[in-house]
């Protein structure tokens, strides 16, 4: 019969949890923030402008911008989800570390091996998100929780 991992054995899995929570998910979120920034750079463009009196409404502008807003919004939502999940898993990690000294000690070994030093100021280990401009970590479960600054979801 098998029980839950603990001690040294849990330390290895905690390192995986740490990697997911504080390295991979935040870095993915960073990438999505950059995608959102790329798309925000196209907002308010005048590239589509031409006289509407002659050529009619700017239908390409309208339909393209609507899709742009949708992907922009999706990128913001995805980033917020990744940051939120990473933060939540990081809190779980902190709980395990606080309650299992042996596992925490083993995690320190992994940390020192990975960093090749024993400083505790590394972002990934202190739980500070690596994003330069992280959103408040709330999990967006619908449109109303999208980060401020993003476009409204076109209906």
């Amino acid at each position, binding site marked *: 019969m098998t029980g839950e991992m603990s001690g040294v*054995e849990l330390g290895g899995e905690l390192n995986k949890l740490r990697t997911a929570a504080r390295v991979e998910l935040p870095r993915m979120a960073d990438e999505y923030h950059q995608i959102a920034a*790329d798309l925000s750079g196209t907002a308010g463009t005048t590239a589509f402008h031409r006289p509407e009196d002659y050529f009619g409404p700017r239908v*390409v502008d309208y339909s393209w911008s609507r899709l742009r807003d949708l992907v922009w919004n*999706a990128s913001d939502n995805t980033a917020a989800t990744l940051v939120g999940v990473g933060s939540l898993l990081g809190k779980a990690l902190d709980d395990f570390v606080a309650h299992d000294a042996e596992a925490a000690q083993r995690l320190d070994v992994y940390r020192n091996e990975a960093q090749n030093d024993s400083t505790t100021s590394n972002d990934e280990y202190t739980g500070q998100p690596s994003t330069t401009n992280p959103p408040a970590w709330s999990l967006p479960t619908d449109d109303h929780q999208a980060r401020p600054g993003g476009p409204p979801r076109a209906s």
Partner: protein
Amino acid sequence: MTSDYVNKLNTAIDRLIDSTYNKTMDGFADEFMEIGGAPQLDLGPPHKTHVKDDSPIRPFLRDLTNRMFDHWRQLPEPQGIRDLSAKTKTARDKLCTTDALKMEDAAGSVGGGPLIPGYMADVRQDLSEWRGATTSAVKSKVVNRFPAALFLQANTLSVMKLSLDAYAIVIEQAQGDVVDMVNHAAEAVDAIDCWGGDDGKNAVFNIFTGALGLVGVFNGIKTAVQLVSAVTSGGAGVAKDVIKLDDPESNPLGAGRISGVWSNLMQAEFKLVKKFSASEGHIYDVLNSYYWELENKINITHGPDNSEYETDSAANVIRLLAPSGISPGGVKPPLSHTH
């Protein structure tokens, strides 16, 4: 800075004005005065063809051409549209560096250039043995849904990019058509029989020809694959098989008189506006159809052998919404391998 296109258009307009002025002064003042809104000229001998005062001719023609072509000078700059396309590509390439037209292609791009798919593959691996309600929710709602979200995000950006590329081509063709149209009109004026006879008046100069190059690039195109084909194959970037040319007006009314040429030019210009708007409409149709396609339900497969699936709207999936009601306490350690 004035674009090369506007310079060409202005040169063509200047040439048309010069041709019309010269022909008017060469004894065809009566034809000039038949142009709608033209000033009446004071004529003298011989044969009441000599223009005593030519001062109203050029201002009238300048004003007329400004009214006819100012809006064509204000077409979008193709380079501005291509700059938007490049920005869209920059965003798309962070997700997938190929045109992700199939969901499996996007999901299978792990190991390629972009970082995001590889990170999520690592997350999947790192969480594989962790248990609990929260972990299960994260796996189900985030990790397993991610390939579908990535596909939809990348594919949407690809459609946006391709539409912009096509729009730039449409604009360039319209620009070329406008310049050709005005040049053809000038040629038609130059070629008017200097004796004013009927022979040759319906000569080869059909200024409608200039309007025919602008066609519905997106006629019949419903998928991104067809869109790619349309903008990358065929001469001048236009797919021949999706183009349906209008029949040229073989015998334009009055093309042998100054007033007839100008009348034709006005009709052709009107027709060109309609064609340009129609081409924009085709691009709108593509983008609009795609947008509403996202309202449809899609299947998201997961499980070890993709045997399980759930259904949700693409508009929800593309946003990778987080699972609700999860907490750190719902993360449970893996089962021990040693006990």
